[in-house]
């Protein structure tokens, strides 16, 4: 078993077009490092230094990881991580 990571259209250039990829790790941070080995550049699009970029939403199963523990959120085999582009903007 592994952790399934669902990738939005905008980032599928990093996964050879795949909608979902698999990885492993004990925390979200470890999982993203693990994914980056096979899909170079993907982590950089999701993480800025020590924090998730504000342009993306990352969910563990049904929860936004910002409300769980960010990059330190524990993950385990059988979990599903979903990445969506944040939809936001403003007048300026």
């Amino acid at each position, binding site marked *: 078993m592994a952790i399934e990571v669902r990738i939005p259209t905008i980032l599928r250039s990093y996964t050879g077009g795949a909608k979902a990829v698999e990885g492993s790790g004990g925390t979200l941070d470890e999982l993203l490092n693990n994914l980056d080995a096979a899909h170079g550049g993907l982590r950089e699009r999701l993480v800025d230094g020590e924090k998730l970029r504000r*342009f993306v939403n990352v969910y563990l199963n049904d929860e936004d990881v910002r409300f769980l523990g960010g990059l330190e959120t524990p993950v385990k085999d059988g979990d599903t991580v979903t990445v969506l582009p944040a*939809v*936001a903007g403003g007048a*300026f």
Partner: protein
Amino acid sequence: MLRIPRALHDKIIEHARQDHPDEACGVLAGPIGSDSPTRFIPMQNAERSPTFYRFDSQEQLKVWREMDDNDEEPVVIYHSHTATPAYPSRTDISYASEPQAHYVLVSTREETEAEFRSYRIVDGEVTEEPVEIEE
């Protein structure tokens, strides 16, 4: 060019008027690849602000999953500007990440007439496109 049924066009303007002076936002879903919006999905503006909008992340996950289940995609992503023109701001451009979507902006700064304009935003480049309203 954006082709949009009159009823959906009117619903967007109605939503923008309702939430004025805060920004309103939402999606029109349509079958994948059809380029044809069929379903109106107003979203909460998690910022509840006159100068900023952000889809509530939990609501977005739910709606994106629904679209996935229905073989739909966001054909239109709309939001309103309440004191400035219906033109994408720098923030709008930096967040735009659906190259296949029509980004619709409505300005409610005039009480009598709403400005309704549509754009493509790809790799930070904005291109305005004509809007054809289907009766």
